[in-house]
């Protein structure tokens, strides 16, 4: 059995070498498909990072009328805090808001002077609320509006930010579903192209397969070398793809960093290198072997 398996693998390797021209073509095409796949993976990673950064910046603020008491505000805060979708609620008192405002505009003398002129603090107290999911802001806004203390709420910033919040959300969803769709489509194209190339290789050896059948070779004995050959295309293609991809990411990483400082592209792919290498090699071998299996099926009919 082991000797048989070794012979089958050997024979697949011999086929791979003897059909060097076709092997080169099939390997090249599979390598291109795998590089595209890795590229798409990168784009998806980048967009998800950007979206996460944006989402982190979105929150909802309730501004209170200046005559609202601190007790009323804290009551609303404690009411909101117990909701399951809430991540955090930060209370900013009127005094705190004023000092923040002053600090922010410390360089602007005109503003400082104007504030000094005022007798009363013009700024409102506010609650800055963050939810676990951006889609939940609308329900929080509604909750605040329907609160028995809603009369002390001056305005809710959600309605002003709504456009931005929803757009970020739709981008995030779009990237997720379209990215997935694109990966699927690409995998399909790669499989079709690989399948066709392998089919040509096998068609070239149609007569050999017929003869193998006539001398009593079992289907596995015929299929084995071709599966090995297909797997070898995949193995070499994934090695080529990885050899192109990692240096490319290294080169691009700095540029990405200058655009989006929160993203370390090369770092990400370096830390997950073992998974990515395994995944790409596995994908390549599976792609080649499955293509071969489908392509040879029709020649195995007895």
């Amino acid at each position, binding site marked *: 059995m082991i000797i048989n398996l070794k012979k089958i693998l050997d024979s697949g390797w011999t086929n791979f070498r*003897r059909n060097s021209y076709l092997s080169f073509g099939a390997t090249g095409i599979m390598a291109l498909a795998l590089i595209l796949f890795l590229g798409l993976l990168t784009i998806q990673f980048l967009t998800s990072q950007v979206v996460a950064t944006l989402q982190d910046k979105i929150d909802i603020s309730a501004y209170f009328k200046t005559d609202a008491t601190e007790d009323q505000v804290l009551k609303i805060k404690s009411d909101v805090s117990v909701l399951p979708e809430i991540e955090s609620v930060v209370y900013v008192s009127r005094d705190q808001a004023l000092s923040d405002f002053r600090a922010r505009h410390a360089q602007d003398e005109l503003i400082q002077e104007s504030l000094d002129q005022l007798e009363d603090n013009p700024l409102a107290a506010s609650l800055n609320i963050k939810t676990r999911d951006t889609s939940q802001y609308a329900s929080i806004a509604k909750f605040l509006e329907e609160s028995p203390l809603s009369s002390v709420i001056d305005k809710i910033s959600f309605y002003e930010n709504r456009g931005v919040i929803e757009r970020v959300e739709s981008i995030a969803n779009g990237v997720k579903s379209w990215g997935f769709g694109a990966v699927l489509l690409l995998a399909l194209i790669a499989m079709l192209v690989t399948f066709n190339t392998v089919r040509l290789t096998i068609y070239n050896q149609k007569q050999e397969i*017929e003869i*193998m059948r006539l*001398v*009593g070779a079992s289907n596995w004995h015929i299929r084995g070398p071709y599966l090995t050959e297909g797997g070898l295309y995949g193995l070499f293609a994934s090695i080529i793809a990885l050899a192109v991809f990692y240096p490319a990411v290294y080169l691009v990483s700095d540029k990405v960093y200058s655009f989006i400082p929160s993203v370390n592209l090369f770092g990400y792919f370096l830390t997950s290198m073992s998974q990515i290498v395994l995944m790409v090699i596995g994908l390549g071998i599976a792609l080649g072997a499955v293509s071969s299996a489908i392509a040879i099926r029709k020649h195995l009919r007895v």
Partner: protein
Amino acid sequence: MIKLHKVKKIYEPHDIVLDNIDLEIKPGEFVCLVGVSGAGKSTLLKMLTKEERPTSGSISVEGIDLSEIKDNDIPYLRRKIGTVYQDFKLLSKKTAYENVAFAMEVSGAGQEEIEKDAPQILGIVGLKNKLDSFPDQMSGGEKQRLAIARAMIHRPKILLADEPTGNLDLVNSYDVVELLLKINELGTTVVLATHDTNIVNRIGRRVVSMDKGRIVRDQSHNGRYVI
């Protein structure tokens, strides 16, 4: 040994290739299956290796009903039956030795066995000096002898030869026929499909004549090619 009972083969819609064939071949017989092209000789031979299946009727080889053999087990049937064809069906990228070795490999023979048996059988068919020649470097007669060597490597009890002399000149044809007779003498049942009158008359054994898918004559001794 080989039994066909009411075997019919119809290619849809109305092309009757074999029509109610009843035939029995005993162990050790040498049978010439004769008839013009299209009489159904090749189809009949293909039925025996399950390359073709009958539309109705039953076929058994060595007591085994072929309809009971599963697709996965067909290779085992084919290893029991040697086949030789008009167009040789040799692997052109392999040498004479490798062609024989390949047939042994697929049936799971070990390296040692291959190295011992392959040159021996090639010696028997007179190709001792051609072990490393590729089919393209051999004459028609040599190619056919190589094909016979390959067919005999499993020591099959049955050898089916479909027009083996069709591509050969007279001298080479007689060489191949002599070889088939020798194989038969050693105990192998041989079924030879041919439309070559000279060869059939020279062999002078059982002759089964076919025409339009039917057996029209079965001469059990010293048969002649008569249509």
